[in-house]
C-alpha cells in the first residue's frame, strides 16, 4: 500500500450531473418539438436543423481549436434552438450564417459558454432578422396578424370561412395546440413544447419562476389589452399565449441558464419583464413579434437583477445595508 492518496477539500463526492449532461437533456427536451416540425414542414425542417446544429458545432470547435466537435454540447443546443426560431422557407445559407453568428457574436466574443450576456440562439435570429427581415418574417408567419384580433379575425383563420367568432377561435386553438399552423420550426406545437419543458422541469434544469412569470404576464396583459372588441375575454389571453413564439420563448429561450438570473426573486422578475416587453411590442410596436427582443433586453438586465435580488441569508433579520 504505497500509493498516493489524494488530498483535497471536501466535499469528496460529486453529483453525476455535468455541463454536458445538462446540454444533452436540453437536446432531449427539444426532440418532440423538432419531431413535430419535421412532421409539419418535411425535409426543409430537417435540412435547416442539420445545417444550424452542424454549423454551430463546427464553428465553435474551430474557434476553440478543439477536436471534439460536440464538446460540452452547448453549441449543438444553440444550433438547434436557432433552427427552432427560423421559418421553414429560409434559404439554407442564411441559416448557416445565423449559426455562425450565434456562436461567434452570441457567445465566443464574450469568452465562451458561461460568459455570454445574450442568449446566443436569439442573437443569431436577431442578426438574421435585421439583415433579411422579409425572409425571416414573411407571409408564412402568422404572428403579426393574430394580434389585431377584432380588426381582421378573418385573416387569422385564413381560408376557413367561419361566420361566428367563437367558432373561429375554437378552430384556431386546436390548430395552435397540435401545431397545425404556419410558423417557425419550433413555435408551432404547444403540446410538443410543453412536453419537452416537462423533461427539463423534472430534471430541475429549469425553474418554474421564469416561465410562469412570463406566461402569466402575457396571459393577463393579453386578456385585458389583447385585442379589439374582445377586451377582457379570457380566450384573448390564451390566444396570446399560444400564438407566435411566446411558449417556446418562455420555456426554452428565457430559461437559458447562462443568460437568466440566478436568484429566485430575480427569476420571477425576469419572467415578468419578458412578458411585459413582449406584450408592449405586440400591442404598440412596429416589429411583428416581441419575444426575441424582450428576452434579449431582459438578458442585458440580468446582472442588475441578480445584484438587486441577493436573498437574505438563513436567519437574517433584515437586509444588511
Amino acid at each position, binding site marked *: *500500500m504505497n*500509493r498516493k*492518496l*489524494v*488530498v*483535497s*477539500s*471536501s*466535499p*469528496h*463526492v*460529486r*453529483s453525476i*450531473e*455535468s*455541463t454536458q*449532461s*445538462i446540454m444533452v437533456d436540453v437536446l432531449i427536451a427539444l426532440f418532440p418539438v423538432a419531431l413535430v416540425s419535421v412532421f409539419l414542414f418535411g425535409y426543409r425542417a430537417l435540412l435547416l436543423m442539420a445545417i444550424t446544429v452542424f454549423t454551430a458545432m463546427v464553428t465553435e470547435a474551430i474557434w476553440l481549436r478543439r477536436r471534439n466537435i460536440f464538446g*460540452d454540447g*452547448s453549441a449543438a443546443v444553440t444550433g438547434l434552438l436557432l433552427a427552432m426560431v427560423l421559418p421553414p422557407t429560409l434559404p439554407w445559407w442564411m441559416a448557416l450564417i445565423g449559426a455562425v453568428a450565434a456562436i461567434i457574436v452570441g457567445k465566443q466574443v464574450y*469568452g*465562451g*459558454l*458561461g*460568459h455570454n450576456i445574450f442568449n446566443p440562439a436569439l442573437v443569431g435570429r436577431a442578426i438574421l432578422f435585421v439583415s433579411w427581415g422579409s425572409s425571416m418574417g414573411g407571409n408564412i408567419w402568422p404572428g403579426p396578424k393574430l394580434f389585431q384580433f377584432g380588426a381582421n379575425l378573418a385573416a387569422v383563420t385564413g381560408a376557413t370561412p367561419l361566420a361566428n367568432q367563437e367558432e373561429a377561435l375554437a378552430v384556431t386553438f386546436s390548430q395552435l395546440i397540435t401545431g397545425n399552423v404556419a410558423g417557425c420550426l419550433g413555435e408551432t406545437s404547444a403540446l410538443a413544447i410543453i412536453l419537452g419543458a416537462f423533461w427539463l422541469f423534472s430534471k*430541475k*434544469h429549469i*425553474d418554474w419562476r421564469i416561465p410562469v412569470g412570463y406566461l402569466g404576464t402575457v396571459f393577463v396583459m393579453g386578456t385585458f389589452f389583447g385585442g379589439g372588441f374582445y377586451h377582457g375575454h379570457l380566450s384573448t389571453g390564451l390566444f396570446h399565449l399560444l400564438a407566435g413564439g411566446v411558449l417556446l420563448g418562455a420555456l426554452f429561450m428565457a430559461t437559458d*441558464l*447562462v*443568460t*437568466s*438570473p*440566478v*436568484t*429566485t426573486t430575480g*427569476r420571477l422578475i425576469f419572467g415578468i419583464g419578458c412578458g411585459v416587453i413582449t406584450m408592449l411590442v405586440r400591442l404598440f410596436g412596429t416589429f411583428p413579434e416581441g419575444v426575441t427582443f424582450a428576452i434579449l433586453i431582459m438578458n442585458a438586465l440580468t446582472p442588475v437583477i*441578480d445584484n438587486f435580488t*441577493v*436573498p*437574505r*441569508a*438563513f*436567519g*437574517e*433579520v433584515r437586509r*444588511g445595508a
Partner: protein
Amino acid sequence: MAVSIATFKGGVHPEYFKELTASLAVTPVEPPKQVVIPMLQHIGAPCEPLVKPGDRVLVGEKIGESEAFVSAPVHATVSGEITAVAPHAHPSGQMIEAITIESDGEDSWEQPAAVEFDWEKLSPDEIRRRIREAGIVGLGGAAFPAHVKLAPPEDKPIDTVILNGAECEPYLTADHRLMLEQPQQIVTGLLIMLKILGAGRGIIGIEDNKADALRVMRQEIEGRPELKVASLRTCYPQGAEKMLIEVTAGRTVPAGGLPMDVGVVNHNVGTALAIARAVTEGRPLVERVVTVTGGGVARPANLLVRIGTRVGDLLELCGGMKEDTGKLIIGGPMMGLSQPHPDIPVVKGTSGITVLSDEEFELEEATACIKCAKCVDSCPVNLLPLFLAEAAEHGLIERAEKYRAADCIECGCCSYICPARRPLTQWIRLAKAEVLKRRRQR
C-alpha cells in the same frame, strides 16, 4: 416506510451507501498496543500534558487538562507507560502535541471518583462538572465541549433539547447503530440534559431512511410526554444544526447567532450516550464508535475503538486498504477531511473513516460557471455560492463579506451539485475564514 414531510429549503441527495455498514452491529476492538492521544481534540484551548515520558497510567486517568472554560480534558485510553510527549500528525492536517502510551496489556481501569450514580439525585452543577471531567465533546464531528453548551448564560433560557440522530452524512452509520443498540442510554442522556437546563421538551430527530431506529427510539420514549421522536425527510444536510432546529422545533436560529438564542441546545445522539455513561457510571470518554467504510476497504464495519488508536491499525483490522484506494477521509465524504496517510489517531470527533476507491470519486477539471443556479437552489442557508466563490477566487474579501461568506455552514452542497465541477465550498471556506479573522480584528 413513513414519509415525513419535515425538511428544510435546499439541500442535495447524494448517494448514501449506508447499506455497507447499516446492518453491522458495533464490534468492540481490543485495546491497541499503542495509542497516540492529541492534546487538542475539541474546539477551544488545547490541553497541557499532566504526565511525562516514563509515567505509568491507568485507563481513564486524566493526562491532559486546561484551565480555559472552552476546553475538555483528555484521558488515557489504555493502561501502560507514557513513551512520548511530542507533536504528532493529527486528522486536522496539523502537527499537534500528543501523548503516546505503550499498553501493558492489562487494561486496568482507574476507579471512578464519584460515589452517587443516581443522576436524579445530583445537582445540575455536579452533573456539569462530571461531564466536563469526563472530557465529553460533540461526537458528531464538531467536537465542541459538551459542558459549555450545557451552561448557557442566565439571559438565555433553554426550553428545548434536540438530539441529532439524522446522520445525514453519506456512508456513516455509527449513530444509527447506537440508536438501535443503546436507545435507553441515549434517552437517559437526553433526560439528564433536560434536567440541568431546566428544559421541558426533548426532541430526537432521525432521517426517515432509518425506519428501524425511528421505531426503536419511539418505543424507548413511550410514556414520556416531554419527549418526541421526529421523522425527517432524508436530505443532506438535514442534521446541520440550523436546519435541524428549524425542522424539528420550528425555530430559526438568527444569522450569526447560536441555538441558545432561540432557546435550544442540540447534541448528537452519541454525545447523549457519552453523557449518560459519564454521569451514571463515572466513565470518561475513552472510546467511541467509528464507522470504517467505503469501497476502498475490504470489510467495512462499525467499531467501538479506544481514542488514540491509529487509523492505519483500524484499516488493517478491516482487511486493509484496497489497491485502488484513492482517498482516505476522516468523517464522511461531504464534510470529512482527506488525509495524506493513515498514520493519524482516532480522536473524539472521528465519527467515521471513509476510504474511497478511485471509482467513488472523480478528479475533474473545473470548467466555466454556466450560471445554472443549482448551487443557489441547493444552499441551505440561502447564499449565492457562485458569486461568493468568484469573489473569493479573486481575493475580494469585502465582496465575499457582502455576499455573507460568514453565514456559510460549509456543508458542501454547492460543490456537490455544480455541473461545472467548480470547487465552490473550498473557495467560500477560505473567504469565510478571512472574513471572520477580519471581524475579530475590528
